């Protein structure tokens, strides 16, 4: 019997992308996050 080779899974892997919302969340998170330096200490603040 002939062997079956398939590229399906590999193709599938190459087409994978994160959801639009995930990327948007990250961009918004980045905009909201600010790091405050204070006497060698760093504070993170999420400002919406």
């Amino acid at each position, binding site marked *: 019997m002939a062997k079956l080779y398939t590229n399906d899974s590999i193709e599938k*892997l*190459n087409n*994978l*992308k*994160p*959801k639009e919302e*995930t*990327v948007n*969340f*990250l*961009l918004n*998170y*980045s*905009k909201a*996050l*600010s*790091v405050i330096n204070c006497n060698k200490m*760093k504070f*993170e603040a999420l400002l919406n």
Partner: protein
Amino acid sequence: MQHEILQDAALVTNYIHGDEGALEILITRHKQKIYSFIYSKVYDRDITEDIFQDTFIKVIRTLKRGSYNEEGKFLPWVMRIAHNLVIDHFRKNNRMPKFDNSGEFSIFSVLSDSTLNAEKQIIKDQVETDVRRLVDELPEDQKEVLLMRIYNDMSFKEISDKTGVSINTALGRMRYALINLRKIIEKHNIVLTN
């Protein structure tokens, strides 16, 4: 290749200096590679999405805190973070096994929820109310014995002590109570099953 590495490095520097657009370019440029890498390990879209998000949250925090050491290796660095988070995910899952229900085998085919669903609960309540109403229709002496036996779970000895009749009388009243109940149920075609 060299060009791209330089570009990444420049974008990272710009981002650290406050250019939010640089991050967008970096994510757009590498999202597919990172996402595919995570997916190739966990094979679950939702988990991949979570790990992808956590990876970039770490990236953003490290860059904003100024803890990133630029050595022209942005992508390998992000991949390493993703890899570590994948390992964390598997460690966590080993401690707390999770059943994936997306495959052929459904865990719910062997596990069942013993509590009734809303519809069955309503039917059960209705049946119980109907039975209570039927019991109320019985003659007082029969009703008394039936309530003590079925609802209070008393023995016929206790019932006889409490009502002051003999055990045989109590047994007889119980028997007639049941016969009468059956008669009413049959006569009115009442369905008392759920």
